[in-house]
């Protein structure tokens, strides 16, 4: 069954005996218009028949034509279809133009197959390289996605350099399990863990005030931040189980499928781009309007104020801490090219960025090499590899119970406090607080360093091809391995390190995480064309994923001198966390396409995992979908409506219990040198099952005037059953929490996208798109008592999981002491507005992002009220009775246990991105560089340049608890967010 051989024989016979047959042979070559390279895999069909051929890797085809005249229909995914009429046998050389229609894109629907977007039954969001990073560069990949597609709530936890984002697709999908999507880059499952550093909580005691110790408040970044957005060609986002079911038990929170850039055959292209710029705080709050009288009445320190005023040493400490302009430099060099057999893409990126706080910043070096090689016409081999070295200095912010973080300490600092070092470099103690934040900023270290390799390989083998059948095998392997080092250092001379005030005499912590994730998969894809009317695509495969993490943190106290080595200390403590997990699964999927009129898909995934109670029990996740392209039916008579598709999809996907939920594990203790074991706060459940999400989605896609206007609408309903909850337990049992499958939730939502090419002429074009989306959630069932997740109790406002209520409701005491719903983190809706203008060689593009509604718990203001430093302390716009000023009102509310003033509307309107670019005309370039340079582009861009909100802090986009599955939106003295201004040059050779 060697197809190549039979093809050669056929060719051979035609050359020898052409006159012996009635039919005549037509040969030709199909070219890719965008690259001027041969286009393999294009379909050449004789119109009105089922006879056809596919071009080989060199773009050549050969076909027998019985009758002339005949019309050949030449098509290929992503290209405009061409019809060529033949009156006699001749060589047909056609160049296909890349399709400009967005709806002609390809979207990935299976693990190994894709489908034309116009045939997809799901609203799969796509983000192109241009949309992702073309307007203005973002610091991290997840940050670059904000506002770029419908159905997502992307929240930066803070402005700390190095990232830290929560990405929620179509609402809350888990309460205590993983709520972040699965990231797959070129087939490699990429790790997105947040690993917290040792030592920070030892100093801040953030988890000591009663907040659950399982929540990280140390603001660790998540590891997807390592990925370099410059390397990305496209991103597709499967937002829920109806699209992601085929990914099974890790896909409930959605799947982000990333394809990196590949080389193309032809001249080697070199591109160099450099961007420089700066960042600065989005919104500083300013100071209370101090004068000597106020200083006297609040603190009895009027004379100190006057003295400082006379000496000219009144300071704006907010400016001292957050007033820096951080320098940004992004350098990128890429090379791509190839010959008939081998193509490659290589890139090197160096990003450096200083934070708006001194001694903070992030830098990243990324090296990528993607190679594709054709072993022969039927076997293709490709390798992707990416090495990343990233380092971020993140400062010391967020919640604390010791007033030691820079953020909290600042809120307790008055302008007349003198915190700067004397001429000998000695820092004074803070007169009104337990730490001097200037000193802390200048000497402490909180660094995350990653050295990471992500590599994948795939082998595509055409086992069999003829004009009706095509059987292909795909083998893939991927590895993501990194070493993450966390370094935390507090020298002995810090105010709060002094043993005389209960300090630990210097603290140094060195944490090392070795993480290795592997994934292997094998697929078979069979395509069958029946009578030219129905196409069947069958795929089946097996997958295996292995995860291994080992974190060791050594935290030393009582340092020798101020040495940073952890052995140079009186007291050394070690903790270790290990995780080993193996998942295995299979899937089958059948897709039927009837003349592009009806496209139906049926699939099933089965998964088992060592993370389940019974490691060898399979969990099955089915999916089914159907799309009707009404415009392709005979009855369609609206010529201006070139597409009208109705679609429906249903799918199920899972989410594993967090590691350790199966077990009730002793932790260790020491007393007087005796090692001991103590019970944990959470009771494990050996029979815990994965969460199961069932999503149903319906929608319609319409294209008008040859897709000049396109409209996409989707409605979804997703239910999550067997919710894995770290539920409250009667603490008298010895366990305050227990893991249990104990509830269900439901998300429903609408998503609308409208795109219009308003003008499209040679000199001027204007493309505009508007999207609008909303999500509502409800806890539909809860078999345990309602319980609080993130937050600090009803006196301050807390997220509470309660049957019949929104999964993101914020409850708290009202002024009468009753616990009532005070807000909801879920926005009423979100809207984005994108415009791309091109006039001759200029392009201007901007993205507005409006989040309407959605509440936060803002505790920063209360803290600055306690410090007497709130900028709005003396204003009187909060107290309904008008009697108290804002500061006293908030403190009074706090003392009365009334949480109302702390729950604030976190709506915002942001100019997320704007970019203005000028491409130097090719004539000028030709004149200047004599053909050595192909293009030069310069530009200006900005991120978050305009921020409109009524929220009483630095930025409504904030999360003290990082990317917690539910409960994003609590603020406690975070690292403020920043806006960025950039200047760009890019040169192509």
């Amino acid at each position, binding site marked *: 069954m060697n197809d190549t051989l039979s093809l050669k024989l056929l060719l051979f016979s035609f050359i020898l005996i052409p006159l012996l047959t009635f039919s005549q042979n037509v040969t030709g070559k199909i070219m890719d218009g965008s690259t001027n390279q041969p286009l393999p895999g294009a379909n050449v069909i004789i119109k009105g028949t089922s006879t056809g051929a596919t071009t080989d890797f060199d773009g050549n085809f050969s076909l027998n034509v019985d009758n002339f005249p005949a019309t050949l229909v030449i098509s290929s995914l992503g290209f405009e279809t061409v019809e060529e009429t033949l009156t006699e046998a001749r060589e047909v050389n056609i160049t296909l133009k890349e399709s400009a229609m967005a709806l002609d894109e390809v979207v990935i629907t299976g693990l190994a197959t894709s489908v034309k977007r116009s045939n997809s039954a799901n609203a799969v969001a796509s983000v192109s390289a241009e949309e992702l990073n073309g307007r203005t560069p973002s610091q991290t990949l997840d940050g670059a996605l904000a506002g770029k597609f419908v159905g997502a709530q992307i929240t930066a936890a803070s402005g700390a350099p190095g990232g830290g984002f929560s990405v929620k697709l179509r609402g809350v999908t888990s309460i205590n399990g993983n709520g972040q999507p699965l990231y797959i880059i070129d087939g490699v499952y990429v790790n997105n863990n947040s690993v917290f550093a040792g030592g920070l909580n030892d100093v801040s005691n953030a988890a000591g005030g009663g907040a659950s110790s399982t929540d990280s408040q140390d603001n660790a970044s998540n590891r997807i931040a390592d990925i370099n957005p410059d390397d990305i060609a496209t991103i597709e986002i499967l937002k829920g189980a109806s699209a992601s079911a085929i990914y099974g038990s890790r896909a409930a929170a959605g799947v982000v499928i990333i394809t990196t850039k590949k080389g193309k055959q032809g001249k080697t292209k070199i591109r160099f781009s450099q961007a420089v710029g700066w960042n600065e705080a989005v919104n500083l709050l300013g100071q209370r309007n101090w004068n000597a009288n106020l200083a006297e009445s609040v603190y009895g320190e009027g004379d100190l104020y006057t003295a400082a005023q006379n000496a000219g040493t009144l300071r704006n400490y907010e400016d001292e801490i957050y007033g820096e302009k951080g320098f940004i430099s992004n350098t990128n060099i890429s090379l791509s090219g190839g010959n008939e057999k081998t193509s490659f893409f290589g890139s090197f990126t160096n990003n450096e960025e200083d934070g708006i706080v001194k001694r903070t910043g992030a830098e990243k070096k990324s090296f990528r090499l993607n190679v594709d090689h054709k072993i022969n016409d039927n076997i293709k081999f490709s390798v992707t590899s990416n090495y990343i070295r990233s380092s971020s200095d993140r400062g010391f912010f967020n919640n604390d119970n010791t007033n030691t973080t820079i953020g909290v300490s600042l809120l307790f600092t008055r302008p007349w406090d003198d915190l700067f070092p004397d001429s000998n470099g000695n820092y004074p103690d803070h007169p009104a*607080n337990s730490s001097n934040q200037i000193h802390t900023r200048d000497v402490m270290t909180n660094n995350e360093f990653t050295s990471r390799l992500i590599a994948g390989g795939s082998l595509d083998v055409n086992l069999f091809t003829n004009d009706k059948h095509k059987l292909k095998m795909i083998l893939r392997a991927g590895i993501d391995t990194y070493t993450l080092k966390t370094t935390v250092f507090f020298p002995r001379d810090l105010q709060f390190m002094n043993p005389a005030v209960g300090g630990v005499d210097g603290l140094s912590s060195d944490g090392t995480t070795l993480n290795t994730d592997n994934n292997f998969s094998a697929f078979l894809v069979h395509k069958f064309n029946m009578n030219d009317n129905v196409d069947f695509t069958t795929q089946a495969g097996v997958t295996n994923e292995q995860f291994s993490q080992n974190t060791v943190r050594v935290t030393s106290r*009582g340092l020798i001198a101020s040495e940073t080595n952890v052995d140079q200390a009186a007291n050394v*403590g070690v903790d270790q966390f290990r995780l080993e997990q*193996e998942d295995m699964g299979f899937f089958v999927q059948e897709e039927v396409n009837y003349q592009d009129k009806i496209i139906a898909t049926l699939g099933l995934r*089965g998964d088992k995992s060592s993370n389940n109670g019974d490691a060898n029990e399979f969990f099955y996740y089915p999916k089914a979908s159907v799309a009707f392209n009404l415009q392709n039916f005979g009855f369609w008579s609206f010529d201006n409506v070139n597409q009208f598709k109705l679609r429906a999809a249903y799918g199920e996907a899972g989410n594993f219990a967090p590691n350790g939920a199966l077990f009730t594990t002793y932790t260790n203790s020491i007393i007087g040198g*005796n090692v001991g074991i103590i019970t944990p706060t959470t009771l494990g459940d050996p029979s815990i099952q994965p969460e199961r999400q069932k999503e149903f989605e319906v929608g319609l896609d319409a294209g008008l005037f040859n897709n000049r206007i396109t409209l996409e609408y989707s409605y979804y309903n997703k239910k999550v059953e067997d919710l894995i909850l770290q539920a409250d*337990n009667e603490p008298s049992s010895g*366990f305050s929490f227990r893991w249990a499958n104990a509830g269900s939730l439901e998300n429903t939502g609408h998503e609308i996208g409208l795109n219009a090419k308003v003008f499209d002429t040679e000199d001027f074009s204007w493309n505009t798109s508007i999207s609008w989306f909303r999500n509502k959630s409800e806890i539909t069932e809860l078999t345990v008592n309602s319980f609080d997740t993130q937050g600090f109790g009803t006196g301050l406002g807390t997220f509470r999981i309660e049957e019949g209520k929104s999964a993101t409701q914020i409850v708290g005491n009202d002024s009468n002491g009753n616990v009532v719903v005070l807000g909801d983190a879920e926005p009423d809706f979100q809207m984005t507005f994108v415009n791309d203008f091109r006039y001759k060689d200029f392009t201007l593009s901007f993205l507005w992002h409006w989040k309407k509604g959605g509440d936060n718990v803002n505790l920063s203001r209360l803290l600055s009220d*306690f410090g007497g430093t709130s900028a709005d302390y003396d204003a009187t716009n909060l107290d309904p009775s008008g009697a108290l000023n804002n500061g006293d009102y908030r403190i009074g509310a706090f003392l009365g246990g009334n949480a109302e003033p702390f729950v604030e509307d976190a709506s915002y309107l942001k100019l997320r991105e704007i970019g203005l670019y000028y491409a130097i005309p090719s004539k000028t370039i030709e004149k200047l560089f004599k053909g050595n340079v192909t293009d030069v582009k310069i530009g200006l861009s900005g991120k978050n340049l305009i921020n409109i909100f009524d929220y009483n802090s630095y930025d409504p986009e904030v999360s003290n608890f990082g990317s917690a599955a539910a409960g994003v939106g609590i603020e406690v003295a975070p690292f403020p967010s920043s806006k960025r201004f950039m200047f760009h040059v890019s040169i192509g050779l």
Partner: protein
Amino acid sequence: MKTLNKIKAILFVLILLVVYSCSIEDGRNLNGPQTNSISEGLSRPELPQVVSGILADMRDRLHTQRDAMSVVGRDYWRHQSSDPRWTGDLMTGTLDDNAFYITTPYAGRYAVVKQCNLLLQGLENTTEAFTDAEKAAIRGFANTIKAHELLTILTMLDDNGIRTDVADSENLGPFESYDDALSTIINLLNTAATDLASGGDVAPNTLGVSYLEFNRALTARAAAYQGDYNLVLTALADSFMDFNGDLNTGAYFQFSAGGGDALNQLFFALNSTAANARIAHPDFVNSAEAGDTRLGKAVLRTDGPLNIADLTPGTHDVYIYQSSSDPVGMIRNEELILLYAEANMMSSPSDAEMAINVVRSAAGLGDVAPGGVDEDRLLYERRYSLFAEGHRWIDLRRYNRLIAEITIDRPGDGVVTKFPIPQNEGQ
């Protein structure tokens, strides 16, 4: 076509075979022993680690519990600028049943109870050749510690009652009334004392007295709460009470800066800032008899008074522990002598006087007038002797003097009579 179908069929079957035949290993927890490793059978090497774990965990949230009880008893004001519920709820008297000041000590104490119960279950199921004496000692230890933990919770919740039967996590016993729970605790202590008397001590012991002595001292305290003065006296006789000895002799929570060990969080340096402070209540400072050296537990702030939460400027820091590795008393000789006085106050006033005078002389004060030991006297001595150890609030309550004697510092403040049952108990 047929061949192709065959190939296809074979390959698909192969795929299914691969998936179903490859089994993966059950997940293991790599990060520590599981609780059933103890409860399903205690081994000899495990024993000291379970005992040490129990002793270590008794310190969990001790500072929160002591602070909460000292604030409601107005021994001192606790101020923490990042958590003003200390000067809010606990002083206004409007308590939240889901706030840290009750939930964390409550959960902490019951976690220790759980560990004692796991130890007792492990002892039942053990295949290790423990002697009867060893078994008795282990039982006695576990029940004594359990009783201690339950008693501290009972004193916080008072007539809300507590659960005492919590061995089966899935099937918790009912909330018992204050009186019933107190009887249960005393019975537990008495049984444990019999076991400890026959079995001896268990290693390790970081208390500073034997477990039996500790048991008897604790029994005396519980019996006094019950008003069973005979039991107070018989228990004291077997305890470490010593009229001639150091008043600080007793059972202690130990702390150290060693890696993995815990620090004494009841220690704050002198002249602490508003960020974190314990300010002696002015009434404590002002109500002392002249020359009472126990006033030294409150030290004048040399940096000047601290202005917090609209309270009268705090002039004195609480300063009982001199470093973050100082031990904290669980029950001291001083309390035992005062219990002796209390038990004899009605039946044998001269013995009561003798005991009170032991304490007064240690405080640099003269003897009481003959017949001068009454409730007022007793409560004064207890207030100053046991300052900041969480007793005053309990004492005022059991003598029905809370409303009369708790100083209301600010308008709107009130008196806490008991802590609520934590919300997550589902009561």
